[in-house]
């Protein structure tokens, strides 16, 4: 069973975000970039599929030069091939990304196409289902469990207060939620082996996509930091009764939640 995993490289979850001049993007200097946390679950699921059933695991990322580093990391963890579609993402929207990824996915063998349920940073949760639609595949979104079958997979989709068990025919798009698995770290051996695997580099043009195809339908016009929150009141709570009374007053009179 062959898998493709789409990898987005994002600022470290602890990074302090600064806005670059122009007020449309973040300042990238000094920021550490990582593989988006949900994409790690997606990759781990693909590697386990390979271990159980054989097949290839191809990781694909669309982005500037720096994303090659993220792809290397995935190779070190067990991906067997990597495609880097080079491009500047600053004026590309989710649909443009989905178009590029769909075209790149078509060129590699796949039964299962995995995404993170959300790219940490863009916080969109759009690209996976958009690719599914472009390719005409079924999708199972926000999965916490998956089992491959003959020509199909069964996965658990997390919704409000319930888990849905969904079966879909292959090829299928799956988006990974926390809980799907525990991602492994790269081993030294993996890191060494990864160095020998070439990254297949191409451009959207190589994939047959024109500038027109990638024209954004959603445009960021400005980016700003959230308003600094005024620090609230702090009280001493060594007397539980007094503390509880003050909390209750706040809940009733200020939050109006009683």
């Amino acid at each position, binding site marked *: 069973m062959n898998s493709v995993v789409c990898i987005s490289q994002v*600022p470290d*979850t*602890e990074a302090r*975000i600064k*806005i670059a001049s122009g007020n449309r993007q*973040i300042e990238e200097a000094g920021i550490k970039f990582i593989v988006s*946390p*949900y994409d790690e679950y997606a990759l781990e699921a693909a590697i386990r599929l390979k271990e159980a059933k054989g097949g290839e695991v191809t990781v694909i990322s669309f982005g500037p030069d720096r994303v090659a580093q993220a792809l290397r990391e995935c190779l070190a963890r067990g991906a067997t091939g990597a495609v880097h579609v080079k491009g500047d993402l600053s004026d590309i929207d*989710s649909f443009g990304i*989905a178009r590029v990824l769909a075209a790149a996915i078509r060129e590699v063998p796949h039964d299962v196409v995995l995404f993170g349920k959300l790219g*940490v940073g*863009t*916080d969109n*949760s*759009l*690209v996976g*289902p*958009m*690719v*599914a*639609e472009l390719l005409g*595949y*079924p999708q199972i979104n926000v999965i916490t469990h998956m089992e491959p079958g003959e020509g199909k997979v*069964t996965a658990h*989709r997390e*919704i*409000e*207060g*319930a*888990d*849905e*068990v*969904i*079966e*879909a025919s292959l090829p*299928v798009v799956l988006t990974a939620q*926390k809980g799907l698995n525990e991602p492994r770290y790269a081993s030294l051996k993996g890191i060494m082996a990864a160095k020998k695997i070439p990254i297949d580099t191409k451009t959207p043009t190589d994939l047959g996509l024109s500038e027109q195809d990638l024209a*954004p*339908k959603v445009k960021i*016009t400005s*980016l700003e*930091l959230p308003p600094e929150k005024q620090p*609230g*009141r*702090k*009280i*001493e*709570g*060594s007397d*539980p009764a007094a*503390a*509880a009374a*003050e909390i*209750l007053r*706040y*809940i009733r009179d*200020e*939050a109006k*939640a*009683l």
Partner: protein
Amino acid sequence: MSAVLVVCEIRDGKLTKPSREALSVGRRLAGQTGGELLAAAFGPGAASVAPETGKLGASKLYAVPHESLKAYSTEGMTAALAEVIAQTQPAVVLLGGSSDGRDLAPRIAARLDAGVASDVTSLEWADGKLTARRPVYSGRAFATVEVLSTPAIATCRPNAFPAEESGDPASEVVEVTHEPVEAKARLLESRSPEAGEMTLAEADIIVSGGRGLKEAENFSYIRDLAHAIGGAVGASRATVDAGWIDHQHQVGQTGRVVGPNLYIAAGISGAIQHLAGMSTSKHIIAINKDPEAAIFRVADLGVVGDLFTILPVLTEEVRKAKAN
């Protein structure tokens, strides 16, 4: 081409809260586009919510009552919604930010060659364009985006828009026929492991516990207060990773992003990844014994003290207050 169409979800015969919120912001937007507010509902009970959608300002309810839409399925719903959109030609399509809304929005967008602003906290229509504000980088920044396609699609962040009833009469029901599709994915079963527990997404009040609880059993301190006050139970990742509670309860960057009216955090230090999931809550109360804990930076009311002594008294006080 100036209508605003709101995709409605029905649970137990009623509109869900995210749908009510989407209708409310949709009504305001329709005022700006100069078009009608339209609702769409799916499945056998679809037409029955007409009084509710009417009260929230929708002049018409497009009901697709086909039996095959009884339970949500991506492919079935995408086809059915595409039919309604073809009939109504809206300028804007809004969905609630529920699991199903977020599953459907990108799929229908790709089908229609349209753009989506997801998880928006404010929406305006100006100069013939939909402009949205949305949190990015887990709330560490806010982006203003324009959606340039027709229709322009958006999913509304739960709790960001108050549901406001106008008291209008029931929507006029327009029945839409649907050709069921040959779906490649099908629902085998739906399991609710914690039936009866309120889910984070829809809760107005969330009481969350962290590693300060010391052990799994002590989540009872959190549950008792949550039940007394009528809220949902939240948790930090540290407690989820320790196996004290199911990850459905996790709040934060790799859990649920929530924005309830009231968020009470007890024994949670306030790591940036936790704050990312709750800092937009309207009112935040933190109880922590460490006066330097980062959670106090976002708390409206911070209580420096021991959760084990304070929570039981508070729970009792809340019970008494509720009884009166």
